[in-house]
């Protein structure tokens, strides 16, 4: 049980590391948001599962379930809000091959 918990914690840490690297290496805002959102969501899951396995009693597990549910709801909504704000602030990267939002404005 302890070993499984360590494995989950290490996997979570690795995903966080990859997310951070992604934020550093990606060339524009939208791709940075993408890397950040996905890596932190699964990283948080993995770390929370690791914590639950480290001490599997009901009072911990119930709290962790609540935290996971809130993360699963709030993380993508937050990134969508940032992306929308980025777009509305006209801070649009010039490497887009297609821009449906712009076409919408012209119609």
């Amino acid at each position, binding site marked *: 049980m302890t070993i499984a918990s360590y494995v989950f914690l290490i996997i979570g840490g690795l*995903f966080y590391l*990859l*997310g951070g*690297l*992604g934020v550093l*290496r*990606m*060339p*524009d805002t*939208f*791709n940075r*948001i*993408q*890397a950040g*959102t*996905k*890596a932190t*969501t*699964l990283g948080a*899951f993995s770390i929370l599962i690791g914590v639950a396995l480290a001490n599997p009693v009901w*009072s911990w597990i*119930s*709290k962790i*379930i*609540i935290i996971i549910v809130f993360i*699963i*709801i709030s*993380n*993508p*909504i937050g*990134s*969508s809000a940032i*992306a*929308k704000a980025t*777009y509305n602030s006209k801070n649009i*990267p010039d*490497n*887009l*091959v*297609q*821009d*449906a*939002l*712009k*076409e*919408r404005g012209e119609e």
Partner: protein
Amino acid sequence: MKYVTTFVTLLLIYLLLAGFTVNEVILGSIVSAILTIILVKYTDFRINWKFPIKLLKFLFIYIPVFIWKLILANLDVARRVLSPKIPLNPGIVKVKTELKGDLGKLTLANSITLTPGTLSIDVEDQYIFVHTVDVKGKSDVENTANIAGPFEKILGGIFD
């Protein structure tokens, strides 16, 4: 009916956080009752007899697919981040959805955000605007099938 569902939801969250003891149930009921009176005009829980079936479908059909896609998305991010020259072909595409309810659209947009290479930016009526790392399809129909297809089918059976 709205009062009851709001109250039960709040009490359940409270008890999961605080633990199931007699004291907590009493205090949780009081707190939930006060919060219910304040919050009830903002909530819109409509629960009917189909709800348990929908919940089971959600838990056992949607969640596994979602977790699998989330893992794929992370491997995809890892591959892109670790390759020396980041492979990118980004664009914003329009995805059409058949889902009518707000909750259904929210779940679909969240799922799109957490699947490989896509990030939903805005929702407008029946369209979701999605930023993708790699634009594959030529037309909106093709993009819709690629991005929303797998979730649309599952969520269509759960939400209106």
